[in-house]
């Protein structure tokens, strides 16, 4: 844990508080509120979890327990272009593992982390419902099908001059 406290934006904290109250601040709705929180902040740093705990009247330890249990939740900020590689059964048997390795090799970051320039992050997910296109990769909302290891650098190229 770093000791440097992150300063959250007041407007985003307000949004989170509203989200919590839309679920009546019911402790049983913790997962739903965490989904909203991740939508608002992009990830769930300790400071956000503390607000959630306070709003939902549960302990911070419990919130952290839920955040670390579900792979959907992340405590690390995602890149501006979040790359998700499907490692569901169909994609896996058609070479998703190799595609993933290629992304990791080129971007030099492990799964779950973001490149130092904040541009790309790599995560794995399980089945996007496009098994016919296996192996599938998503960058943000855009879907790429039948991705090969050679195709990885072409995908990344698309975002080279995006900024």
């Amino acid at each position, binding site marked *: 844990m770093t000791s440097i406290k992150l300063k959250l934006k007041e407007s985003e904290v307000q949004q989170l508080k509203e989200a919590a109250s839309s679920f009546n601040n019911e402790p049983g709705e913790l997962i739903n509120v965490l989904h909203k929180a991740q939508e608002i902040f992009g990830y769930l740093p300790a*400071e956000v979890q503390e607000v959630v705990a306070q709003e939902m009247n549960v302990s911070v330890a419990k919130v952290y327990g839920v955040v670390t*249990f579900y*792979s959907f939740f992340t405590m690390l900020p995602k890149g501006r272009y979040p790359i998700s590689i499907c490692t569901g059964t169909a994609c896996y048997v058609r070479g998703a593992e190799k595609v993933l390795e290629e992304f990791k090799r080129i971007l030099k970051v492990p799964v779950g982390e973001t490149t130092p320039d904040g541009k790309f992050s790599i995560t794995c997910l399980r089945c996007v419902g496009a098994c016919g296109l296996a192996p599938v990769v998503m960058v943000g909302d855009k879907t790429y099908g039948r991705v090969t290891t050679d195709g990885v650098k072409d995908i990344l190229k698309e975002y080279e001059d995006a900024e």
Partner: protein
Amino acid sequence: MIKLTIDSRTVEVEKGTTIFHAAKKLDIEIPTLCYMNLGDLKIEHKPGGCRVCVVEVEGRRNLAPACATECFDGMVVQTHSIRVLNARKTVLELILSDHPFDCLICAKSGNCDLQDMAIKMGVRSIPYQGEKSTYKPDFSPAIIRDMDKCIMCRRCETMCNDFQTVGVLSGVNRGFEAVVAPAFERDLDHSECTYCGQCVAVCPTGALTEVDHTTQLIRDLADPEKKVVVQTAPAVRAALGEAFGMEPGTLVTGKMVAALRRLGFDYVFDTDFAADLTIMEEGTELLDRLTRFLGGDKQVKLPMLTSCCPGWVNFFEYHFPDMRDIPSTARSPQQMFGAVAKTYFADKIDTKRDEMVVVSVMPCVAKKYECTREEFKVNGNPDVDYSISTRELAMLIKRSNMDFNSLPEEDFDKPMGESTGAAVIFGTTGGVIEAAVRSAYEIHTGKSLKKIDFEQLRGIEGIRSASVDFDGVEIRIGIAHGLGHARKLLEDIKAGNSEYHAIEIMACPGGCVGGGGQPLHHGNPQIIKARQKAIYAEDAGKPIRKSHENPSIIKLYEEFLGKPMSEKAHELLHTKYFDKKMKDVLLD
């Protein structure tokens, strides 16, 4: 009612009963590891996680965890079929496959539920070899967490979250990486942990233990330059005997004193002396607040809350810091003792402060932390140097090769070993307030009590209330033990719904008798009740039973302190509290 068969015997139980309880009705003890039931304290922990209690249910494909499976009519259960016995052994082997093999040097060795179970199941090898989970050990001032030894029974979570409502511990991560930890896997020292030690008291393995000061103590005892003074808390004498095979509830006051003397302490004193002193200060403070309140002063803070329990003090500093002007400012008996020992008594024996070592024997883990608080130090030298638990004392006695059971009964040294029955009952829930009432009544009314026992204040219910007639004025008293119960009373005060004048709070179940530093009760709440009974028996047998009649206390005021709440008393015997609330989000 439901009728079922367990091991070919028929039993009738109410709907909703688990197989475990139905078997118990037939005196069949199904082995358990994660399960915990503290009866009267209304804590039943049955996560069904360890799978040691599995039984065979006719018609069911897989084995059922007895602690978490409800009975149905016509159910046929076998608790020791070969399938069950093999499964239990396999479960144990799997748990042990991710557990360090350091039983010989583990603090819990000989007192470990996991070790006992491995012996019971006849585990002779660990056939599963592979990766082991490892975590950074966490050393706080009071509790050590060694999560390599955690078996995920999650009893600690139940105590911390449900019973104490402290909420420091939670299961975090998933699968092989899963572990019980504070938020963001911080150290306990950086969490809202109160150090009540109830997690330590229920941990079945060596994952949670107390900080051990015995090595330091042996070194100090061997040092001829040092005067080593010991004080023993009231609840210790009602539990220490258990470590030497005595029945729970056996009082061992005299033998304990003899043992401490043989260990080499220069002065064997009693925290009870300081408990009497606490009553003089806290009782006077209560009377002062009451008198002002009854005189129409609306500023006065009522109810007054007791402040002897360091776990409780931590709790309100973290969770209710805005209410920290309500508890009594009186220090705990441990700290009053230290402050008086290193001034009044040090002068008497012509010893300098830094040549004196004050050690306390406490039923408590939080006391270890309390000694380290900055406000209880003078130029960096603590009033109480360190505290050892009842368990550590038992270990020291065994290590010193003493036959505890055959020791003679000896008396505490004077002056700080003299105490009354009122002080002894500090060790149980309801005791501090009863002691306070005994003195406050007599001082307020000028009359002598006809009946010293206040039965209405005694018991084991989590929250109790009673009223005492102060010669026409009704004094309403609340009592809570367990921080979850304390929280309820605090929330009432916050909401303006509290009708009490005084409230006693102790963090542990049953009060100090059920403290985190006591010999392990291994889930048997009857042991806590037996200790409570012993405490009241010691009180009843004391020649003096009211704190303000303790001759050594009277002399202490005459020679040194002046009167209760005097300037000197304030300096040495009172304290202030801090806002320790974790600062939430830092906004601009």
